[in-house]
């Protein structure tokens, strides 16, 4: 097995474990914003897409990369916008205007 694979696996297992521990504590109240936020964070694949598109190795890889940039960046922007909107709606009784 390549060394890169081992180090990635290491990172993967630790992150997944940490993810379980952290996400378990998210209140069920916020499960919809949780999903839209993780969606936006997951859109970090845009960085890989930018590199593929920017390397210009072949016409095909550039085009695929550019489509991937658009798809993932729309997720990043849209995911943050909607999470932000949803969280603004959650108010306590006290914070509410009379």
């Amino acid at each position, binding site marked *: 097995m390549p060394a890169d694979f081992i180090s990635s696996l290491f990172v993967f297992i630790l992150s997944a474990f940490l993810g379980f521990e952290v996400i378990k504590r998210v209140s069920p109240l916020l499960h919809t914003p*949780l999903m839209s936020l993780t*969606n*936006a964070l997951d859109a970090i694949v845009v960085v890989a897409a930018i*590199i593929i598109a920017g390397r210009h190795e072949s016409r095909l890889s550039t085009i695929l990369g550019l489509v991937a940039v658009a798809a993932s960046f729309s997720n*990043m922007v849209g995911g943050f916008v909607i999470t932000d909107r949803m969280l*603004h709606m959650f108010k306590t009784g006290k914070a509410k205007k009379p």
Partner: protein
Amino acid sequence: MSPAVLQQLIDSTYILAAVGFILALKWLSSPVSAMRGVLIGEIASGLAVAATLFDPQVSQYKWIIIVLIIGAGVGVPLGLVKMTAVPQRTALSHAFGALSAALIGIAEYYVAAPQVPKFEMAEIGLEVIIGSLTFTGSLIAAGKLQEILPQRPITYRGQNYVSLTVLGAAIALMVTLVVHPEFTHLFLAMIGVALVFGMMLVTPIGGADMPTVISLLNSYAGFSAALLGFVLNSKVLVVAGALDGASGFILSVNMCKAMNRSFTNVLFGGFGQIHAGAAAAEEQRPVKSATPEEAAAILSAASKVVIVPGYGMAVAQAQHKVRELYDNLTKRGIDVKFAIHPVAGRMPGHMNVLLAEADIPYDKLLDMDEINGEFPQTDVALVIGANDVTNPAARTDSSSPIFGMPILDVDKAHTVMVIKRSMAAGFAGIDNPLYYLDKTLMLFGDAKGFVGSIVRELSGGGSHG
């Protein structure tokens, strides 16, 4: 700046971004700190994208900037959809996420082909299969949620065997490619088969199971990004993908528990069709019904009211009327809370968002485990557009298809009022014994109209007779 230093700076930014992602999720644990979580997530993602633009491998900017603008142009409107449309938006974003992960994997293959090392070929193959099936599966889910496609499960005999064969074919093609990576036409075939499998995976699943499916697709989208991180040796993708995958997985398990179903049962069950006949055979039993005036009188005499909203309430757009009812009762000194079942709504947590949008304070929204102990002290439980999640048969009747499913114990309240259009059975097509109890009053009508009439009665300006 020397290229080595620049690369180190970019890598450090990715490490910071990974820390930011973890903090973002950690701060989502409470509504108080959640906004801070989103902010750190935005900063982390923004920094990572900005750093990547400085990567020396990126040579041409024009098209990248153009497609970034296009992406933002698509993303903003998708971020501004109505709250009832959030589930289909989420499914669509799973599709986009999976699409971009798959496309990058495909590009990597063509860049490396025909000389792809075996191990890398296996990683790319797996990544592209998961990405592709998540892409089409999510599109089908979005179509069902948007009601472009039929909500009911579409099944045929031997379906599971056919689906498994298709999945097997995709894997067989992948294995062949590991041995012969130069067979590029097999790579295309593998993508095609995986795309078809994604459709076959979601098409048979009914509308009632959408919360589980959407969580599962979330998980797949995350894991495909993590796998892409393996292919590209990009640790920030591995971290983000693992977090997203873990989150989707936890939510899927939650949803399955809330419906007392197993994963295999959701994926291979075709729920919601088998039992549809059972309710129709039930003979007419007497129920008690009440008018808005009577309902208003009972509510105003109560000291503790629990409102149980279901998706029917959101479909009827009744949440704002429900808030008026909440305001009116609270002003009279009545304690009003909301009981939220985990599968109320079309995705995890959806009902909370719909009620928060209607300005109902979130500290009044209690989930099933928190509220169930309170029903015996509750004077009135008001059920609006919920059905199966209140069905006591889930506790008592072992022959019921929903037996064992955790429910809201509304039948333990002193008086139960159910707003419902008619006596038709719910999503799962199962009759609800709750409606025939002595303490239950049926309020027949449209949720929005009926709640509106109750509010008018309570404010005293409604009727003269």
